């Protein structure tokens, strides 16, 4: 197990990419939270405010052909991987222009072009699918890695353990990314896991445990893990410690944890780093923020204007 240090030599355009994606996820999530009580979205929402760094640092190193399999907390990682915002919004609005044509809803997002072959609401199972993608690559289907992305409590499901074992037995190009926010709904990790997650994973493969609120640390560790997996060094496990600022589901703040922006906010931390090292001006930061707001406005307008799916076209 390695505990990574952020790489302070990050290039400006990389840092900007990370900031843009994190801001896109954050601002989109906040907008969803704001709109949600009006019932325009007839689907549950699992927001990831506070957790943006994990998916962003990871996806910075993934290509369109790499296959990312998600669980129920989908919006952030899907946007990080490249799902167009308007397709996400239209799906949440239940429109036929949504990425799943309105058939999937919030938890089932598909974007084959950007390496999102689907996500699942049954906790745990999708971990195996990422291993299948790795196996496909190994058997000649293409040059890509499979990525299984899941929460801390998904590691309680037997399929987690079975998946790691098989990936390790065959040295498959698979990344296991555990977004550890310390909770399964309202149950703290101490009540759902008798063991250290990394301790178990490290019995089977190289692991890294990372401060998941530090996008540079995630970026750094993910970069090394992805290149090892691509380089034929077998599966890699990334354990990212993070915080879920919102309730498990819905638009409300979580009352089980305390958030300290200085310590916990990945966006704040990156912006401070970039500002202090002269990479951005306050003006640029403000511009970025409002540019993204406009993107979100446009995506919502797109969703609102889009037709609802026609039940008569629903095939049996």
């Amino acid at each position: 197990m390695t505990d990574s240090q952020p790489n302070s030599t990050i290039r400006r355009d990389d840092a900007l990419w990370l900031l843009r994606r994190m801001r896109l996820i954050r601002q989109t999530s906040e907008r969803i939270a704001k709109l949600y009580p009006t019932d325009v979205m007839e689907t549950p929402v699992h927001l990831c405010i506070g957790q943006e760094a994990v998916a962003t640092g990871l996806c910075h190193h993934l290509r369109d052909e790499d296959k990312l399999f998600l669980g129920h907390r989908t919006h952030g990682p899907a946007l990080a991987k490249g799902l167009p915002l308007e397709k996400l919004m239209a799906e949440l609005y239940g429109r036929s222009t949504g990425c799943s044509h309105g058939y999937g809803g919030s938890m089932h997002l598909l974007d084959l072009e950007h390496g999102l072959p689907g996500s699942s609401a049954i906790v745990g199972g999708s971990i195996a699918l990422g291993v299948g993608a790795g196996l496909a690559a190994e058997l000649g289907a293409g040059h890509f890695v499979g990525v299984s992305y899941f929460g801390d409590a998904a590691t309680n499901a037997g399929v987690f353990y079975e998946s790691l074992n098989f990936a390790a037995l065959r040295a498959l190009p698979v990344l296991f990314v555990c977004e550890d926010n310390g909770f399964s709904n309202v149950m703290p990790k101490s009540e759902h896991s008798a063991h250290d997650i990394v301790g178990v994973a490290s019995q089977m493969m190289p692991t890294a445990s990372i401060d998941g609120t530090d996008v540079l640390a995630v970026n750094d560790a993910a970069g090394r893990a992805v290149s090892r997996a691509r380089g034929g060094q077998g599966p890699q496990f990334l354990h990212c410690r993070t915080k879920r600022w919102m309730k498990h589901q819905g638009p409300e703040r979580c009352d089980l944890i305390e958030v300290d922006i200085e310590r916990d906010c990945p966006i704040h931390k990156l912006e401070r780093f970039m500002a202090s090292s002269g990479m951005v001006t306050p003006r640029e930061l403000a511009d970025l923020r409002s540019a993204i707001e406009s993107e979100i406005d446009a995506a919502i307008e797109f969703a609102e204007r889009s037709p609802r799916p026609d039940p008569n076209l629903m095939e049996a």
Partner: protein
Amino acid sequence: MPWSRFDCDYAAPAGGERELTYCHAVREAIDQAMQLDSRVFAIGLDADDKFGVFGSMSDLSHPERVLGTPISENAMTGVALGAALSGLRPIHVHLRNDFLLVAMDQIVNYVAKWQDMFDRQVQVPLVIRSVIGRGWGCGAQHSQTLHGMFAQIPGLKVITPSTPYDAKGLLAAAIKNDSPVLFFEHRWLYKNTGAVPEEIYTLPIGKAAHLHRGNGLTVVAPSLAAIHALKACENDDLDVDLIDPRTIKPLDLDTILASVRRTGRLLVVDYDFPFAGFAAEVCAAVTEQAFDALVAPPQRLTFPDRGMPAAGPLERSYYPTPERIGEAMRELLAGQPAVTV
């Protein structure tokens, strides 16, 4: 036997009694069973949370016998079985029946088989409670209703109460039963209210209830479908004999047959998949045993044969409604074949 204390006759509640929600009727059955018998305990994901299984686990008087679990439904079912084989009476609770599929090896290969494998030398007093049905755009993995699948499996009883009164009495009966019972509660019934006696009581497992009387058509509908069918009968004052089987298995075929022998017509409304489901069983069994009484082919009204979609208009079209049930009833009453999906 602590159980003898809550044996009572089967009787529908008289009017003017205490009203309870379906959710609280379930809660009360658990709470009273736990008070009467220290072998009863509850286990399940978030079972120990006040919002556990939509509030039906709140404020139980024996919190020390209410255990939360990790997301390990398969092992947890085995744990419940092992506890049942070791002298306790577990109630395993689930927020959605879709999660039971994770535990299918335990439910079908273990729980359902254990008594048969040993020539019934052993008792398996295990209740598995689960919410069924659609929510709010939850999609194909979180909206299923699988009572038909479990009813196929020998060794399992399957109960689907539609009223608060039935929910309390049948859950008490399930807990008291010495064989495995699956107890399915439709999400949309949770806030319905109805008269529920304060005392604990049991209802017979395998006994249907008439929700409406009539002579033109027999309608069999379990769970939420029963309530929707009742609405349809009342809306249009239809001449329908409406039977809520209450338990899918064992099935009270006698009550259904007696009705069909009178009406000559049968419609089964089942909020479950269509192929080889509960509706097929009722139609096949009725035809086998009351063929000569039938004046028209028995009909089924179910979900379409596909996974549940998420978007509102799709979700609403996927689920039958009182209106669609009413239409099917009227067509059958008029001697026309009903539209099936």
